[in-house]
């Protein structure tokens, strides 16, 4: 079956298009730096982006959940790398399919639920737009089905699936020509895989057109603030 994977295509093309478009916009004529600083611009901007000092100062609880969220996300991305092809350095700790065994995903789900409920009960609710809720719910469903796939394997006693089958599927998706191995569809927990991929695809398609592009845009933005 020679079909084209739409979600990853939209994801890659969308991100590249938006980043290129943003970089090519006309620059602001004056500086947006508030105080003249003698600190070097780039390390300071990266510190702002990755350690979120302002949020730590004003809302430490939110900061903690944000760090858990982003670190868990990063770990999951690294974990998915293994599902593309073998990386011997990642097998430093022996494991079967996923290093976290579902616990990293669980932490991520807890952080997502915290963000969602925080948004729902906030006294300033009218600030939120539908996009905020959609993204959180979509991501929550993706992470739920993805992280519990590993546990579902043992519930349905289908340990026969090896990492090779997952690899064949995910790498075929990334090369934009999806091919589904038979083993995966006939196993008991295939519904989790399918739902996970479905929600992940929706999320990937939504990515370039939503506020999550702040993941790429904060880099030029923080250098603006730091001169």
């Amino acid at each position: 079956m020679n079909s084209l994977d739409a979600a990853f295509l939209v994801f890659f093309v969308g991100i590249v298009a938006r980043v290129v478009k943003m970089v090519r916009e006309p620059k602001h004529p004056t500086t947006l730096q508030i105080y003249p600083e003698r600190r070097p611009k780039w390390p300071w901007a990266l510190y702002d982006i990755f350690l979120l000092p302002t949020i730590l100062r004003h809302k430490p609880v939110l900061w903690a959940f944000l760090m858990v969220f982003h670190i868990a996300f990063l770990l999951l991305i690294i974990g998915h790398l293994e599902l593309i092809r073998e990386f011997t350095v990642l097998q430093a700790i022996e494991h079967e399919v996923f290093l976290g065994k579902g616990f990293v995903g669980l932490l991520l789900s807890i952080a997502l639920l915290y963000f969602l409920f925080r948004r729902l009960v906030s006294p300033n609710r009218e600030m939120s737009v539908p996009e905020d809720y959609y993204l959180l719910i979509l991501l929550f469903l993706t992470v739920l089905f993805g992280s519990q796939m590993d546990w579902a394997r043992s519930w349905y006693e289908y340990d026969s699936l090896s990492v090779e089958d997952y690899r064949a599927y995910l790498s075929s998706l990334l090369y934009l020509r999806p091919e589904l191995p038979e083993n995966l569809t006939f196993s008991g927990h295939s519904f989790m895989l399918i739902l996970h991929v479905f929600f992940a695809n929706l999320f990937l398609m939504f990515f370039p057109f939503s506020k999550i592009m702040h993941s790429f845009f904060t880099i030029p933005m923080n250098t603006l603030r730091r001169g």
Partner: protein
Amino acid sequence: MDQKTREELLRLFRSKLDQAMKLYLETCTRCGVCYSACHVHESMPHLKYIAAYRAEIVRRIYNRYFKGQGRIMPHVRGADAAWSIAHLASTPR
């Protein structure tokens, strides 16, 4: 508002959209830290003293008229220009 004024205003808006403006309009995640960070809001908790609220007034017009999404599915980003106009009218000077 007649057509000519509308086009004039949209052209004025577009002339202000440089890289910095677009970055700030795109990256706001409505996280809520600017409510606690602003000492004015801490002392008088009104909507009009929230930085994100003020930016949102501009952002909704930006999303409605200057993004493809604003024309096809404005609901997603809350791209409601009428909301902006209503809130501008009610914000006292």
